[in-house]
């Protein structure tokens, strides 16, 4: 196990790598869902959690994010046990944000209630679209009707939730997207995440895109959609607090915000990555190897719970030097680049004093010419001891970020 210093981490990410089917644009690690696999996995997850909690001392957790995969496939019982266990092994602040990702195709009222009872206080729901054709294209097993129904239910039980929308799909018109947006806004979700369709390597879409079968909309249309969304969301009183994220006052995604602030975080599960402020440690993205490591005897989680033995830490032999993680420590210039572009993603931007306390050198010393050039191109603005993206800068953010990569 790499020796990371997690003493300051107060966020925890847990990856649940199970899906009923794989969406053709998604490059997150997942395997096919089965009850038995989940049961074996939960045993392993508890082991890793036990191991982790012995390494971190007295960390005060502010946020927990349970992502996937499709966490809503899993019985709320497991989530409840997991949160119980986290509360046992870590300290949570009373107002900790506990988010679970859900897919409208695998959630229902009982599960929503179950999650709420399990202690979850925020849901992130992958709506993606209200257009049946587009949902089908994206491989989503939901429908426009179902998406609306689920949003109504979630709104009924959860005061805090986020909904995702994808735009710039092949052959999608500006009007179609405007409809999606309007429907979404009719629910007034506290938080909305907005992504254009990105083509990632090792996905079915990647192959179709490079064979010329999939044609993404022009840069112009993509930009118009984004601008339309930004304008409408602002008009509906949403804060555009990060390039792709919008919230009503007080409903920012606290967990994600810690990422953009370059704060350290803990992580559990295959494919999940933890960060201690300098190094990232990533678990192997392979469930079988993960299970071999943390549940070599293939023990059932449910039996473990019924034995009442889950609390017996003697069951966990955590002293194996881990072969299931890779450690990647950032060079100073890499760290500077990541710090800068993460900060610039937020509306607040990059604060000079924070940069200085991280790197003991002024940002305007390191990136003097770059900052001047970006200002003259009106991609960033300077004000009050900070720099931040202009509206145009948000659309051309990569052009800005590139300048913060040192040779």
């Amino acid at each position, binding site marked *: 196990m790499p020796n990371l210093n997690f003493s300051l981490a107060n966020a925890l990410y847990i990856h649940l790598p199970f899906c009923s089917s794989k969406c053709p644009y998604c490059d997150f690690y997942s395997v096919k869902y089965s009850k038995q696999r989940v049961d074996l996995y939960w045993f392993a997850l508890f082991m890793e959690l036990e191991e982790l909690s012995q390494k971190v001392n007295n960390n005060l957790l502010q946020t927990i994010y349970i992502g996937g995969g499709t966490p809503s496939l899993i019985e709320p019982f497991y989530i409840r046990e997991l949160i119980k266990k986290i509360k046992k092994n870590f300290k949570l602040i009373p107002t900790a944000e506990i988010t679970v990702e859900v897919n409208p195709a695998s959630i229902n009222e009982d599960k929503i209630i179950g999650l709420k009872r399990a202690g979850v206080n925020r849901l992130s729901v992958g709506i993606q679209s209200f257009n049946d054709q587009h949902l089908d294209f994206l491989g989503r097993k939901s429908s426009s009707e179902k998406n609306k129904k689920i949003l109504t239910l979630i709104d009924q039980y959860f005061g805090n939730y986020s909904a995702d929308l994808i735009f710039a799909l092949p052959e999608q018109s500006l009007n179609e997207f405007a409809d999606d947006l309007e429907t979404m806004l009719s629910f007034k979700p506290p938080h909305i995440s907005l992504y254009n369709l990105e083509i990632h390597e090792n996905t079915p879409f990647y192959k179709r895109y490079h064979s010329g079968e999939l044609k993404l909309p022009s840069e112009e249309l993509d930009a118009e959609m984004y601008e339309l969304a930004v304008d409408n969301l602002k008009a509906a009183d949403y804060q555009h607090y990060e390039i792709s994220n919008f919230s009503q006052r007080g409903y920012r995604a606290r967990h994600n915000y810690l990422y953009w602030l370059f704060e350290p975080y803990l992580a559990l599960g295959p494919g*999940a990555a933890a960060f201690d402020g300098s190094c990232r440690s990533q678990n192997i993205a392979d469930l079988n190897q993960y299970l071999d490591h943390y549940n070599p005897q293939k023990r059932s989680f449910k039996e473990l719970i019924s034995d009442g033995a889950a609390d017996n830490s003697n069951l966990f032999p955590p002293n194996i030097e881990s072969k299931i993680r890779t450690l990647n420590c950032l060079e100073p210039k890499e760290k500077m680049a990541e710090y800068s572009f993460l900060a610039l993603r937020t509306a607040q931007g990059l604060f000079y004093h924070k940069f200085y306390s991280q790197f003991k050198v002024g940002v305007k010393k390191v990136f003097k010419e770059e900052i001047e050039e970006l200002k003259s191109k009106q991609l960033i603005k300077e004000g009050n001891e900070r720099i931040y993206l202009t509206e145009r800068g948000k659309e051309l953010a990569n052009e800005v970020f590139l300048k913060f990569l040192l040779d």
Partner: protein
Amino acid sequence: MQTDKIRNFCIIAHIDHGKSTLADRMLEYTGTITDRKMQEQVLDKMDLERERGITIKAQAVTIEHQGYELNLIDTPGHVDFAYEVSRSLAACEGALLVIDAAQGVEAQTMANIYLALEHDLEIIPVINKIDLPSANPQRVKEQLLDIGIDPDEAILASAKEGTNIDQILEAIIERVPAPYNGENQPLKALVFDTLYDSYQGVIAYVRVMEGSVKKGDKILLMSNQKSYEVDEVGFFSPAMQKKDELSSGEVGYIISGIKDVRNCRVGDTITLKNNPAAKALPGYQKVQPMVFSGLYPTDNADYEVLKEALEKLQLNDASFTFEPETSEALGFGFRCGFLGLLHMEVIQERLEREYDLDLVITAPSVEYQIIKKNGEELRIENPAAFPEQSEIDKIKEPFVTAEIHLPEEYVGQAMELCQDNRGEFKDMQYIDQDRVTLKYEMPLSEIITDFFNQLKSKTRGYATLDYELEGYKESKLVKLDILINKEVVDALSTIVHDENSYQQGNALVRRLKEVIPRHMFKVPIQAAVGGKIIARVNIPAMRKNVLQKCYGGDVSRKRKLLEKQKEGKKRMKQVGSVEIPQEAFMTVLERDENA
């Protein structure tokens, strides 16, 4: 060695019919190479040669077998090096003609047979790869009969499995004539290749035709009358082995402190200063570069590195020329001359690989003859250096006779392609019932665009191309300029035929639009002839470039994506305020499929 115990031969084959593998097997069988871990295909020495499966430099190796000295000369296999090939063949008395038992006689096989017959070589047909399940030696024999070669003389072999290598060696001894015995005559040694070694200077690969040469002799190169003292003679096995003397009929090397390959050219005759031959061997010509392009470092700071690299490469290659050149768009660089496109690619690749240089390469051009209205004559191989249209009276360009060997079914497509490239039909001949040779007279400038690639794709790879320079002829040519963001980019200028200028101008600006990335501002691209704009497209300003999703575990991956974008930008050439990728300078070459 007595001449009756010497056999000099080469191996000729269509590409991929197993030439190099057969050579390797013969070396192994005769114990010339004992190390079993030898790299596959010993004779192709450069990585590039191995990767591309072609031979660029000629190689020689002496094989001892049953008291005989068998000298194998491996020849380059590309039209760019036709002259080197002819000199290698002139050094031999026999040729192994290797034919793939599954593929049968191919167009290149025919070209090879003609070449061998031209040099009076005894041909030993070898039907190779009989181990293949699809092998059909009987069919190949019938084909041989069709083309006038006795099929009973053919040896069935598998170079891969080492089958019947002994029979091939036996046939070489029995059938290839012994070299002429001219031991009592003055020295005549044919240079068929050269190599430069930084310690020993030029190593001349020679075939002694008459007389003999040994260490201490004063030799004379007959083309330039330069004389040197011999430091060492020897043979290749395949490493260089010293020897007391090279005598009539033998193949080997001469080292004599020549410091510049340009003083010892392929095809020249070496004789003795004190007892010179009356006449040089026939066939010497100084090969001239036919294709020219500008080479520029992407980073101007690399100019000196490029210069040194070019100097080093030239030490080994007298057919390649370079001289300094300046481009307004690209800065300081070199105008380089090559034998052909492959030669050009090989040099470029070696520069990028062996010297780790990032280069911008301008589209290849030929040398034009320009007669100005005031009577002045110019020879110009850089389109950017063309005089004003109004000052030009006539322009002449080099024409070649192109010979295309191909299966009959593709004749239509090939003829169309030739016509599209200003070819004039000369002749068509059937080699056998379904193989054809087409002859066209064409401007060389058309051949050095991607003519060969298109020919290959239109004939599913079956066509082969040879061409020979015919001379200069007048053509109605104009200079096509390209303006990017309203500025002429000299390195993108090309010479085109007047009739095609609109179409080519249009096609070119459209292609440039594809390869030049969007900028923060709109970038117009225009084509102009004689100051008149004939085509225009706009590259719209960049509207959106943002990674929208960026969360915890993904941050480093996003950084790497950005780093890749930045790397890409670095490889571009900044012209004015526009960043132009390297490939833009080569798009001038391409032809639109649907144009």
